[in-house]
């Protein structure tokens, strides 16, 4: 499945990319990365990802607005939010806009791999 990684932190993007290459996730191939919501829309239109990891606090366009726009582009796209925002209202808002899951930062390697496994099921 084609994965797009969206996060304004280069460290987080490369960490997720490294973990997405885990042997437990053979079906995942990374097709693009973006550091804000605006870039993510552009990458999504060009690369047509099937699964997405989405940060929330980003410049230009935040993650919740981006989830909504990505769902409008492709309602089949499966999106997991990966964010430090730990309040329940934010998680509910993301799920209402079309996200399929929520993983809190800071996450362990095992937590991310498990979340991606769930996402590609």
């Amino acid at each position, binding site marked *: 499945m084609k994965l797009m990684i969206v996060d304004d*932190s*280069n*460290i987080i993007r*490369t*960490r997720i990319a490294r973990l997405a290459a885990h042997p437990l996730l053979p079906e995942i191939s990374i097709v693009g990365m973006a550091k804000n919501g605006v870039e993510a829309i552009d990458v999504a239109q060009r690369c047509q990802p099937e699964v997405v990891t989405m940060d929330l606090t980003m410049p230009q366009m935040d993650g919740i607005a981006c989830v909504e726009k990505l769902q409008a582009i492709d309602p089949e796209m499966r999106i997991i939010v990966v964010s*430090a*925002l*730990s*309040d329940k209202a934010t998680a509910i808002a993301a799920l209402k806009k079309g996200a399929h899951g929520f993983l*809190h930062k800071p996450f362990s390697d095992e937590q991310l791999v498990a979340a991606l496994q769930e996402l590609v099921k």
Partner: protein
Amino acid sequence: MSDLNENQLKIFIDAVLHYFGQMSTHKAEIKTSYLANKTPPCADYTGLITVSGRYRGCIYLTAPRLMLRQLLIEMREPDTTEENLLDAVGEIANTISGNARRHFGEALEISVPVAFKGVAEQLRAAVRARPFVIVVGWCGYEAAVVVDIEADAK
């Protein structure tokens, strides 16, 4: 002046300890926490979060270069260039602030992190008198999380 109570301060302490616990095999410890009565600490790199919504103020993490470099290595990130050190300090500040919303809720609106090296004018402008300072020890290094938030009276 920050008007955090003891329980609220503990939210930030827990967030800091949780961060290092998740990112590293080495535990962090809180060396001390205090109400600053003079210029708050500023190490090599600082990640600053501005708070708005029903609260106002800022939260920042300031850490020495070698500590951030060590943390990146622990995270198996081979790139320890200046760009990634700035990225790391901003991401840690963002994570600690975001985690605090578990207690404060969405009313604690947080900005994207601004990261800089050395003492920046932005920091002097952002921090008011007497913020809370949490000194964190990890792998022989010390960083500080500075919390200066109060409920907006408006």
